[in-house]
């Protein structure tokens, strides 16, 4: 049984030292912003010192990449992923 509501998805950006900019490093699930920040520190920086972290709800991001081809191109910008579109998920496989 899936959780009816799961912890929302957050995108994580890390600036590993002063002078550089924040880079996208991945995502994680957290219930709220302060949890997301703490978890991002644990998972993506292993608590290094002097690192700056931004966490952003994935749903808040507006994205646009003109050279990505898409039959449903939306001029006003779109979400980061084809999300939350749920596909027929592939079931058991014969081998690894």
């Amino acid at each position, binding site marked *: 049984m899936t959780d009816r509501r799961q*912890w929302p998805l957050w995108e994580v950006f890390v600036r590993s030292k002063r002078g550089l900019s924040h880079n996208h490093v991945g995502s994680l699930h957290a219930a709220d912003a302060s949890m997301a920040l703490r978890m991002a520190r*644990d998972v993506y920086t292993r608590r290094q010192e002097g690192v700056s972290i931004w966490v952003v709800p994935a749903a808040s991001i507006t994205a646009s990449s003109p050279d990505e081809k898409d039959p449903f191109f939306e001029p006003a910008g779109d979400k980061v992923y084809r999300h939350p579109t749920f596909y027929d998920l592939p079931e058991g496989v014969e081998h690894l």
Partner: protein
Amino acid sequence: MSGAPTAQLPPVAQYALRLGDDALILAQRLGEWAANAPELEEDVALTNIALDLLGQARVLLTHAGKIEAAGRTEDDFAFLRDERDFVNVQLVEQPNGDFAQTIARQLFFTAYQRLLYARLADSVDPTLSGVAGKAIKEVDYHEDHAAGWTRRLGDGTEESHRRMQAGVDRLWPYVDELFRTDQLEQRLVAEGIAVDASGLREEWHKRVTSVLDEATLAAPEGSWTAPGGGRRGLHTEAFGYLLAEMQHLHRTHQGARW
């Protein structure tokens, strides 16, 4: 090598073992959560905390060995002492229970450690002040983690509230022991080496009850207080099992290297 009983060691060594055993036994308990946490991210968080504590323990146990000057290593202390020579407080050896009970134990202990290390950073013993200086940042984080979860569980759902209150109630009897002091500690306090545990109680109480309040939880009133005695090597029944699991492999192969 198993060596002299803890009570016969030089006072500073005994003190280092008290703090080191606290950290070691709690790290051992947290290690039981690997692959069992409520969410993958939390598995990482709990293990991070356990690693920090283990790091503190290793420095403190090694320090005790240097002061004793009988050649005992951190592993000799961890694996070759018997129950009555461990001097951790009983709070840290309590079983994990459910996640709420684990968080209650974390809240009580990390709030204590934070106050302790803040003062220990001024110790005239350079190793103790060094451990404390490094650990302050770590335990700040541990305490923040525990307080955050206490709030979420206390003020989350009915079930989480019930479980969190149960965790608080179950572990409250072990809190008093954190603030008991004795002659050994007082002598070291006078020498500028140790921290007077009894002096931490008030601030601890303020901090913890404020978190409990925010979490809509009640601090148990007039409940039973455990007799304690951890600093004198008196533990609870759970402790023997914990040691058996921790020490068995090492003890089976006398003198082996790993």
